[in-house]
């Protein structure tokens, strides 16, 4: 009995974190989609039947949302785990306020990338990647963070590439191998944001307590 209880008490906070991260991922995915639809960047096959169409998703692509959520969970847990195992603690003292700032700036970058008129795609790509690096410098500054965010960017872009090549959706004006060239940067900063949220959630739930001075 005690084993079950202790197991439960050990698992419940993790479960909470997983659920929170999942929903954060879903919300982020919605925002990203809305912004892309607004700009007519991504053209989904428009079988407009469900309410999801509002968010630029069709019935046939409903599984996008949970997959984004799962991705968010993975990234959000990977950050604190990597910190724990590599023993590198964030140099910037993270608090909820800075997480909020980070998130807001990430949405800002998305917003700007979606709505602003850049003269060339290269300029847009340059700007977005510069902003992403700024975000990392301002709110993370850890090598783990940099590495994991890059990893997530690469994996997510690859995933996207597969989807596009399978014809699930396509971009209107692809400039890099049939996708948008700024996509990796957006995934980079998104991964960073989610990772920092994950970190903060873990700290908030007081896991890994013995390692915190």
């Amino acid at each position, binding site marked *: 009995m005690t084993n079950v209880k202790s197991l439960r008490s050990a698992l419940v906070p993790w479960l909470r974190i997983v659920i929170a991260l999942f929903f954060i991922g879903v919300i982020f995915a919605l925002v990203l989609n809305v912004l892309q639809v607004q700009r007519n960047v991504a053209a989904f096959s428009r079988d407009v039947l469900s309410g999801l169409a*509002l968010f630029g998703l069709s019935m046939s692509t409903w599984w996008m949302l949970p997959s984004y959520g799962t991705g968010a969970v993975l990234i959000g847990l990977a950050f604190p785990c990597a910190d724990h195992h590599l023993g590198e603690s964030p140099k910037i003292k993270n608090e*909820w306020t800075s997480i909020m*700032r980070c998130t*807001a700036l990430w949405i800002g970058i998305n917003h700007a990338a979606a709505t*602003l*008129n850049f003269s060339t795609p290269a300029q847009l790509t340059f*700007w977005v990647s510069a902003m992403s690096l700024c975000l990392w410098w301002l709110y993370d500054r850890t090598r783990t963070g940099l590495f994991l965010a890059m990893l997530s960017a690469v994996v997510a872009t690859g995933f996207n590439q597969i989807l596009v090549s399978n014809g699930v959706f396509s971009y209107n004006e692809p400039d890099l191998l049939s996708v948008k060239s700024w996509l990796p940067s957006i995934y980079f900063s998104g991964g960073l944001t989610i990772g920092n949220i994950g970190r903060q959630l873990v700290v908030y739930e007081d896991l890994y307590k013995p390692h915190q001075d």
Partner: protein
Amino acid sequence: MQNMPNPAHFLLLIASRSHGCSPLLNRQTVSANEQERTFTTNLSLYKEKEGTFSKDGVKYPKWFTGKPVLYIQRYIMEIYYDDVKSKLWTEEEMNKKTLLHSFYLVDNITNFKSLSGKKIGNFCFKAKGHKTLFSSSINDCIIAAPTNFWPNLSSFNSDKNVIERIIEHSNADLLIGVPVLASGFQQQTVPGNYVKRIFSVSVVMSSFENRFLKELHEYLGKFYYRDFNVSHNFGLASSTHIQHIYYSEASGILELLPLLLTHVIVFLYIAFSVAKIEMVRSKWALAFSAVCTIFAALTMPLGISTYLQLDSTLQNREIYPYIIIIIGLENILIITKSVVSTPMDLEVRERIAEGLSKEGWSIWKTFFFEVITLLAGYFINVPAIQEFCVFASVAVISEYFLQMFFFVPVLAIEIRRIELTDLNKQNIRKEDALSEGEVEEQPIKSIDETFQSKGSDENFMSPSFTRQAKMPKRLAFAFSFWARTRIVQRVLLLCMIGYILYVITYIVFPSMAPNGSGNVQRVSVESPHFFSNMEVESESRLLWKIGLKIQRSVRNIVATESSEASSTTSQLPWEAWYRLLSLNNYHLAGMHIGLLSPVVLKREYSSKPGRMSVDVMNLTKQEDISVISIDGVYLVFAVLILFIIICYTLTVLMKYLLPTTRDILLWFIRMCQPPQYRTTIADNAPIILRGHGQDIECLDSNGSTLVTSCLEGKVIAWNVITGEQYCILRRNEILPLPRPRMDRLRNHYDDSLLGMPVRGNARMYGYMQGEIAPAHLGMTGSQSTYFGDVARSPVSPMYKTHRRSRSDEVNSRTIVESTFATSMRPVSVAQRLEENFGKGTIRQRRSDLSVLPDGQPLSSVDGYVSSKNILKEHESYNKRSLAENYFQNLYDSSSNAAIWCLLCHDNIIIIGCCDGSVEVWDIQSNYRLCCYRGCSSGVTCLSAIKNRIFVGRSYGRIDILQISTFKPYGGSSNNYGNDNPQLPQLASINLLCTKKWHHETLNTIKIAKEFAITASQDKTIKVMRLSDYGCTYTLHGHSDSVSCLNVDLSAGFFCVSGSADCSLRVWDLSNGSCVHHLSEEHTTAITVLECNHKYAVSISIDNVLCIWKYRAGVCIHRIVQSNNIIGGIALLSSALMVTGSQGCIVVWNVRSGRVMRTITLGEYDCSNFVSHMQKIDNTTVACSYGNEMYIISFSSVVEKKD
């Protein structure tokens, strides 16, 4: 209480949120970006047959379908009145004449019939449904014109107050067709000047009939054009460009989602930030000022851009959340937190300065990086980002400005207000009243210049004192420049006065004040007519390069056609057309319209034809320069200059950034404070006290009396003011006692005690003691802080048995039992009492236990006997009558033991001897009141409160003694003061408590509040409650003997301790924690430590003197004295310090760390050292100089500072 949500937090939260939400609430249904919204095509692309624009070769926006739903043609009417006419006609008349033209114009347009027989009614856009205000009465065309203010011409003619009708109308700008400000109707005109009025008539057409319009324009040109003397045909050329305006669809939640999420996140951000305010005991004013800071930081950029006449093309609701995020609330919180956490006793300005200096660097760094990042973002060639960056950097800079010059002063006022209510603070101030204000440094003068051992002043000063903590030169300059001359303050004051005068003149004489905006706007309309198109274009390009995407300048680029450019200020905002159509029940959402180049018509009322155009041209040329300079470039320059200034200060003062911020603040706060007073020190001849034969060893003072003891054991009490001797304690003599009763008692004692086998022992001990005496004398000759070494030395056991130095010389008749170990006596006396008086039961066991085989008294075998037992012994000692004790003491005249410490308490002198005895003397009567010999271990420190004496001993024991006084021939009295000073006052001493308190020698005892704080060689500090003598705290931390201790009660309960481990520690005794560990500056053991409520001064063995701001834990000055050994310190006030040196004493300014004066001591011999220093009061200090004493008073003169 702490967890209770402060209403102020709610205010902050709600206010900032409501502001943040307001753009959302004011959201209009139309939304699109400027770039997205407008697009200009050449008319050559228009295909007349299909009625669409060809899409070849041009990159179109996505919304562009090729066919606008409707076209709008504007006719801008400009009417001029020259100087003669404007003098002739009243304003009302001119307005009426102007508006009359609108009727004519509308009439001309609607009634025009082209060659093909078409009328405007064939093409115009008809209003649906009921007739609206805008539809022309003839054929339901939507024509926005000033005529619509009135139902018909006759009602216009009968209208007496034309202007009011226009201004009061809610859609005045739509009907006039130009912004009301630009139309000139509202302007005050100066008779004799040119007067211009503008209005426009807009015709909405459903199709674009180029040929018809050409004919119409030519027709109109006949009426309005011939008045002008300008040859080229501007304005009436058929339009070559068409501007498309797109009104995007409001897409509901879809578009709002990111915005909503951003606002949610901003809300969360503010909520989390505000949650952190908890530790701040903020008041309403604080919360209010925080709100004001944020609010103002958001609105200031808007104000600045409006002032510079730059219309933001960005939508505020979209960028405000991000700007809030970029500005952040952190700084306000950080500043408040760090200021509030500074020690409360400091002056407000010091607190603010300290709090800011703690966080100054990080705030600066963040600010710097933010501005750098934003300016870097400016170089991305995207107009929206550039504008956002400029906007945000202005916001950040203005927020910084507001924090420093608005929020911090409010905080200062707030803290000041809290402090004023604090009574505690006032007490300190009273005490320190003299030292308030800055102590001015004076040229160094010595009192005895003739006897100065060293040559000149500089020679005397500089080589001996090397100051290490110097104020940087630049900083010193800036500080002295700012602080002394107050130049910035004065300049600001002048500016403020100038501004107020300007505002007053503007209000009182509105016509006289330069009406900047009106003029500029009015004239800039003209500009393109007289400047060539090329110029306009190049100017526009310049703006483009600078990248400020101002709506107007963008339009200039687009409008290469002169007539288009001329309408820049008279153009209506893009929303106007949406409004116009929606008033006519037609919604443009999701559609785009075509805006044809407006046609400018002119009319002049001039007495001399042909003259006016030249004048207008001149006027235009003059004003136009100002137009260019004011435009766009200005803001960039302003931002750049501001940033350059900031960068300059940053680079120049990079190293000294911390004090810089503080100094600015200091200066600022000083501005708000009442005039300062400075204190100068007057010369005063020292009082020389001579009387001791050997070097002075101990001294103490109670403010009016100074007590000194020398090596030979002589104790003298002096009057501080006059310098005369009160008395010399006759420690070696037998006291002349009142005869009759004393004799009887004495005989009684002798009889009863002589039979006891005491004498032999006494002799033996006396002999042993004689051997040890020289060593002991040597010991006491050294610093009193080395007691521990003495106690640890191998001679110590024997040393403890030392009773007095010259036992043989003492008259044997008067010796009773004094030579025996002290604890013997109570027992023997008790036995004797039992024998003689037959009362009380004395336990036999005690006598067995009381003396150990080797003759050591039981009580002195430290740690092995519980204090209870000893207390019992002492109780029995106390049981004897007071009188008995008293006479016992008088007879017990073995008062020649070396003095280890001295205490002057009220009117009595308490002497702690090396043999463990504590003598209490009365100053006035020069009698020894009593003597306590309960313990044989040397007294290392003494402290007294009321009638309790705390005795610290060399082996770590602490005794608490109580003195009870009574008059010898009368009732007992609790006061030491005696009515008849001739009569010796009687006193008895009894032990209240004794404790094995430390493991090793006690170095010092301080009594403060309800506690006694002891420092010991066992590396600990202990805090004892005075109520029950229990231990409250044991403060561990020092790694070596704690040599000195000082308590500060000014705010909180702090103590500073110095140790042989080369470090100082600041303790908060309210919770027993170590607040600061100051170990950087000293490299050797600290021997002397003094502190007042602000500074602590410590000296180590290697003669390094450090001045600390111990509350903040910073060393402000480190002074190495190469030659001179510092003897003692006295901190006179918060600013004055006196140290002893060889042959002189030195007066320091504590704040600056500079020597203010050196006073030479000794008339003939300057080789002695000033070894002891005693502060008598805030202006007077006593110091020992060989066998002489000097009392020097620094009487200060307070005068108002300039």
